């Protein structure tokens, strides 16, 4: 049961960091053109 809390924490954290990165990369591409 403890593993759900652990992976829920790490999973959401890194998912959010990757979402921020993806949005940043999209914004970089859009502002280049």
């Amino acid at each position, binding site marked *: 049961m403890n593993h759900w809390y*652990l992976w829920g924490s790490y999973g959401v954290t890194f998912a*959010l960091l990757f979402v921020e990165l993806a949005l940043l990369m999209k914004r970089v591409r859009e502002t280049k053109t």
Partner: protein
Amino acid sequence: MSTAIKWFWFASPQTFFPLAGTIARACWIGATLLAAAGLYVGFFVAPTDAQQGEAYRIIFIHVPAAWMSMFLYVVMAFWAAIGLAFNTRLSSMMASAIAPTGALFTFVALWTGALWGRPTWGAYWVWDARLTSELILLFLYLGFMALQAAIDDPRRADRAGAVLAIVGVVNVPIIYYSVQWWNTLHQGASVSLTRAPSMASTMLTGMLLMALAFWLYSIAASLARVRCIIREGG
């Protein structure tokens, strides 16, 4: 040519732009390497906790995220204040660029805290002084971004955002000292500048590596975002 002249040289968005790109690239690499090292230490070197089992490993992202949430707010308010005092566009752009990353780390601190609270306290959330003041920090970040987005004129948006950011700084010491000022469910600081840490050295190493990784990530993300803001014309 003195150092002071160099500072003013880089205060111009046009001259800061290539420097920000170089620093951001180095920080992306550093953040990736440090996060890999921190996760390795956190999962494979640090021992299992006798009382909490594996759930305590949430500490390796919860504490660094909470530190970054407070640190980024102070840095954001600093740049917003410099922009307000000296009318320097780049300072205000920096404040705008830091806010989303600060909000993200604040949410991560709250989320991981909730998932750590359930197995240790028996509750995802309590209206404890530390948790409530951290939630207010998230609202301050969101309020800053919403306020800036709601005003079309960039100069007016900068000034309005700066006032909110500066007033909100009072919340940061409240978050930090809340565990001392009030009786809270949240534990006190395990790491302090004034005394020895109250945790195993491998746990501390993993936590500090992740804190450095998050710090470099924040610099890289903020600089990449400020480059976009410069390109968009502020």
